[in-house]
């Protein structure tokens, strides 16, 4: 790009500030909301910053309601799901890690065949994957509920993991295929001349060379699984199998729940994926681009 003039630079700085403000606005809201009491929220409805800050919202969540702190001293009702925060956090972690591992393992094998083995049916499979990526999850929900009910997989983490893995596999394959395609075939050929089987060449040559691709795909799979609401919402109704998004959704419309408590739990739920995205930004960017535009 050509270097902009002085006035243009000032205008561009201003535009950047507007964008940064818009990007951070909801995060300010959730942080400030979580650091005050319901009372201070209601007392002054026009000021941006509260008169006093408190960590009691976090205290209640992180001690599972055992310690109520000053602002919840008088309250008799706390939603049960708030008390399941640690369980839900653990469930979300288990689901996200398992789905990431499974989609990487299965997806890399399929993606490899897509770029290395030119069969007609594999080309068809790839097209089916692209179409499958578009399937709205709501379409799958009803039959998944009925079938999982039949197999006794309702109210289990396994059911959620299987469902989510299948749902995300096409996307994983789309992200991984271009990475495998960029690795020179000659390296594998050399390994095979030395007596490796095709699968072994894939394991020992292609996979180790594709760590950036696997990282990109892995972090995206983790984030999508961490965020997923509908599948665990419909398959699991017992509190011990709820994931974080389900716990959050269960607080919606509960008139007794304080907004500040909800903001605190939202902040705790978004923290892991925000840290992950900021740390692994480069991989997320590459993965998203690879999954959208390359064959």
């Amino acid at each position, binding site marked *: 790009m*050509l270097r902009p003039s002085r006035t243009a630079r000032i205008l561009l700085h201003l535009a950047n500030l507007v964008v940064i403000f818009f990007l951070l606005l909801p995060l300010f809201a959730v942080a400030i909301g979580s650091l005050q009491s319901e009372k201070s929220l209601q007392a002054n*409805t026009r000021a941006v910053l509260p008169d006093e800050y408190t960590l009691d919202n976090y205290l209640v969540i992180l001690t599972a309601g055992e310690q109520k702190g000053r602002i919840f001293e008088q309250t008799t009702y706390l939603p049960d799901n708030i008390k399941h925060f640690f369980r839900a956090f653990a469930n979300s972690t288990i689901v996200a890690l398992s789905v990431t591992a499974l989609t990487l393992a299965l997806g890399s094998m399929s993606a490899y065949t897509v770029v290395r083995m030119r069969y007609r049916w594999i080309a068809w499979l790839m*097209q089916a994957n692209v179409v499958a990526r578009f399937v*709205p999850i709501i379409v*799958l929900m009803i039959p*998944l509920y009925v079938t999982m009910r039949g197999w006794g997989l309702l109210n289990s983490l396994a059911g959620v993991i299987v469902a989510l893995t299948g749902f995300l596999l096409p996307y994983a394959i789309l992200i991984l295929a271009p990475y495998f395609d960029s690795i020179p075939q000659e390296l594998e050929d050399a390994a095979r001349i030395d007596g490796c089987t095709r699968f072994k060449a894939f394991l020992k040559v292609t996979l180790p060379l594709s760590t950036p691709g696997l990282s990109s795909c892995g972090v995206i799979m983790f984030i999508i699984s961490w965020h997923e*609401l509908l599948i665990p919402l*419909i398959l699991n109704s017992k509190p011990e199998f709820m994931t974080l998004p389900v716990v959050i959704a269960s607080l919606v419309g509960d008139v007794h729940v304080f907004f500040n408590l909800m903001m605190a739990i939202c902040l705790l739920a978004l923290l892991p994926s925000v840290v992950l995205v900021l740390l692994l930004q480069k991989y997320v960017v590459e993965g998203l681009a690879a999954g959208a535009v390359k064959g």
Partner: protein
Amino acid sequence: MALLMNLPSLAVMALVLAYPIYYAGYLSVHKVGIAEIRRGVFPFYDWQNYARLFEDELFWLSLQNTAIFTFVTVSAEIVLAVAIALLINQSSLWTSRVTRWLILLPYAIPPIANGLIWNFMYNFQFGFLNRILFTAGIIGEPINWAGNPDTALYAVTVPYIWRTLPFAILLIHAALQGIPRELYEAAAVDGATAWHRFRHVTLPLLRPIIAVILILRTSFAFAVFEEILAITQGGPGDATWVAAWYSYKVSFAPPFNIGAGSASAYVLAMIVGALAILYVKLVYRRIA
């Protein structure tokens, strides 16, 4: 070998993608309510689920709301994404580098948490947005952003745009970096203004990636769910009923009419499926 390596993926995808899609179609032509699920027998219902669906005014309203929602979000996203991608491409400005570093943040926010945060932003009595506008002296009375049937549907587009914009910006930014500098230099030598360079060099070269974003974002916006659940739950009245919300409510809220819910989900799938085929033809043509 190829078959063996694809077997696990194929098995899982058959289980949770192919079979459910087929089964949703099956359910949509059968009578499936709570009583039938208990008995385990689904009587054949012909096209009655669809017939009822097309007679239901709420279904048409949901489709109309979905269309408005999609049109607003997708067109806003494309304009904003091009503008912001050009902005963060100015790597000589330190503010642009900050923006570029932060741009992916919304992608990391769980959609349901995003919905709840904006629920707090929009709150009529003590919402954060009104607080900012009061402090800035822009408004004198609180505005009921999401509680007014005239503005609610537009109010829920903003959180959705906020959350999904990074993806579009990112793709356009990647495409911008692929445009050779020489093209701009040549244009500058010819005396082209900044607007002309954008209009005749940048924009035509961005057209393919804009098409990709258009299709992807349209099909995903058509299935918007979390923000609706967290902010308006379809209300006020039925002002923000969208297609996915309709399928969800009809199936999983009393009277649990799963057959009708499947039929409505199938209509949604058909619309999105058409877009998906367009996408394959446009983007993945090389493989065929």
